[in-house]
């Protein structure tokens, strides 16, 4: 049954430049389900991996708009429809008075959407990841630069990946099963 288990390929690189180069090769070869791990952010990694811009900004923007409209609607309905009160001689619908809460509603919904959207897009929360099955991998937070690719990738091919890793200078190639 060992064949049915998923696999994760890991390769270690010596420095950020090699990692970027490997990421570019992976991208050009058409792999999608791969990731790069480094102790610090590397400029240009997004382009090297072929990552698209996160849609989070649009999610936050639209949620903020909906939150603002919702808050405005709530104030209009409560004070101009459901329970009309004359307050210091002002009209029932006084948009000026509604601006702070509308703004607050937009900020609240925008902030919640930012946190929840970030978690969903990052596939979090997640208690364990197969990369941690590798002992060597713990160096990713110290001085190790890794590429990992899962067998979920439609183009996953063990022999071809080994060749690609070797050609780009990858060392300690490991297969983790999970």
């Amino acid at each position: 049954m060992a064949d049915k288990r998923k696999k994760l390929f890991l390769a270690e690189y010596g420095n950020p430049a090699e990692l970027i180069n490997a990421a570019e090769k992976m991208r050009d070869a058409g792999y999608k389900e791969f990731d790069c791990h480094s102790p610090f952010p590397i400029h240009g990694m997004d382009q090297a991996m072929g990552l698209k811009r996160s849609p989070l900004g649009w999610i936050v923007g639209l949620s903020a708009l909906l939150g603002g409209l919702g808050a405005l609607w709530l104030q209009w309905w409560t004070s101009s429809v459901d329970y009309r009160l004359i307050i210091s001689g002002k009209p029932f619908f006084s948009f000026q008075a509604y601006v702070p809460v509308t703004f607050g509603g937009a900020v609240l919904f925008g902030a919640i959407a930012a946190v929840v959207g970030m978690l969903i897009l990052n596939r979090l929360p997640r208690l364990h990841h197969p990369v941690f099955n590798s002992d060597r991998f713990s160096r990713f937070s110290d001085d190790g630069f890794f590429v990992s690719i899962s067998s979920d990738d439609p183009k996953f091919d063990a022999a071809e990946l080994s060749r690609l890793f070797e050609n780009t200078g990858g060392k300690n190639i490991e297969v983790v099963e999970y």
Partner: protein
Amino acid sequence: MGFDAEKYRLNSTAGFEKIVLVIGIAGLAISFIGYFVNGDQFFHSYLTAYIFWLTLALGGLFAVMLHHLTGATWSVVLRRIFENIMIVLPVMALLFIPLFFGIHNLYHWSHADAVAHDHLLQQKSPYLNTPFFIIRAIAFLVIWSLFARALYKSSLNQDAGYSENQIPRMRRISAFGMVVFALSVTYASFDWLMSLDAHWYSTIFGAYVFGGSVLGIMALVTLICIWLRGRNTLTEEISTEHYHDLGKLTFAFAIFWAYMAFSQYFLIWYGNIPEETIFYQHRWVGSWKAVSLMIVFGHFVVPFFIMITRAAKRNLSMLGIMVVLLLLMHWVDIFWLVMPNLHHHGAHISWMDVTATVGIGGIFLWVFLKQMRKNPIIPVNDPKLKDSIKFENI
């Protein structure tokens, strides 16, 4: 333009210096004729034009001090442009002189007979009186000029490779300068703009003028960078990343300005006290209503929804249109603060508004271009210059 890409110097400004100087002098000369046609109109037009250009120069001073205090890297390559605008301040101080002769035309509180019949103005007279007004004005103008010159000199020393590290020095000046700046801009806006209607008061008024001032300088510097790029100057050094950041700051201060404007309006609307609401009443009469709405949309709503996306801030055509709109709106905003005190029944644009703005603007740009030609247009010896040129937004 003769741009020397090795030494980062403009060898010539291609005749622009002469053109703006001639336009400036002509504009001022024609405006001064206006004094004999209609003195009140002349001084109100001159004040509008003066405050418009002064807020830009003050914005330059603020931006330079902010740059030193935050220790920013991205803006190093833009610093000299901000500094060249800041150094217009001593000339702006001289251009204030005509206004000393217009105190009587501009400020109701300077009329002794009016004060005699007005309890409120009597109570305010220890602060609002002509000699103290003049002393304060001179103090503000001298303080700003001294800070601008001290920072400018230190920056040129850095270019010349002085052995003493100039960065801690500029930071010290800025730390002290920022506090003085906040107080002086607040009181100057109270004196020169708010006291036009001496009964009216708003404690947030200084922050409102400051917001417009910083918005103005970010828009102006963006426009200058686009202009330089069109003349093949600093095309490599000022990248899309820098425009993106300038766009962010322009966007942020459009919001800050609106926040201040709304906070002022909101509290006055809620409180509903006649002494306070009169300010908005004057600006809601006749065609002033259209001007008020134009500011709401042109100064905030339209730029907000257009500039909110990353793509718009990185697209130089779109960014260029937005900063031109915002600069125009900044002028309309100052016009809207000053003119309802003269034209009570509706907006009225006089030819003096145009000539005074063009006149002071010509002198302003002449000083700016002269400084651009005299010194390297980026701080060549700043240790963070290379990082600033390479800088990328994440």
